[in-house]
């Protein structure tokens, strides 16, 4: 089975802190994603990466950056955390096979910024 793990389930940070959220997948997938999930808004794509050192902005990249130095690891960085970044963050890894894709999700990190 594909396994996507995230470094923390719960995280509490202060405004202005630099925050790192880590995601690791064990199935050699090229593509990885970071979403944030907010009530009533569903999942919104922050950034994605289709290869090592490659990244592209999603729908809401402002205030975030990412790093992909190794294929299995995709990090989300909040350079200066703000209270409006309090949210659930979900990482996903994409398996491509034939003509279809399927995303596998980690358990999520619930971040609270005080």
């Amino acid at each position, binding site marked *: 089975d594909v396994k996507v793990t995230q470094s923390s389930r719960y995280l509490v940070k202060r405004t202005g802190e630099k925050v790192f959220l880590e995601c690791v997948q064990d199935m050699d997938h090229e593509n990885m*994603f970071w979403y944030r999930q907010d009530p*009533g808004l569903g999942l919104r*794509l922050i950034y994605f990466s289709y290869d090592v050192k490659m990244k592209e902005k999603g729908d809401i990249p402002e205030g975030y950056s990412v790093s992909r130095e190794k294929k299995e690891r995709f990090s989300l960085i909040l350079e200066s955390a703000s209270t409006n970044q309090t949210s659930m963050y*979900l990482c996903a890894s*994409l398996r491509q096979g034939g*003509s*279809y*894709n*399927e995303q596998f999700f980690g*358990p999520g990190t619930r971040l609270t910024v005080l």
Partner: protein
Amino acid sequence: AQSVTQPDIHITVSEGASLELRCNYSYGATPYLFWYVQSPGQGLQLLLKYFSGDTLVQGIKGFEAEFKRSQSSFNLRKPSVHWSDAAEYFCAVGGPGFQKLVFGTGTRLLVSP
């Protein structure tokens, strides 16, 4: 632009009753459609997916969904709901190959005794 609409924010169903969760999509080409479930405090788990072929697809946990191109819909159904089905359900649309998924806002299912 791609979009997914899940018109029901909350649905309450009695245990043992049937369930239908609605999903409407907008997509410029042949859509690839997904239903995911999220149990409290958990990540998303894929229930089922549609790419082509038979428009009625079977998934895990006794769920099924029907793709209706004429109605741009992909509704999720289950004939008899169990208390453990209480969760949030997300519909998503994408395309072939490497394509970003667009998610709906989710429907929270409550199961009453």
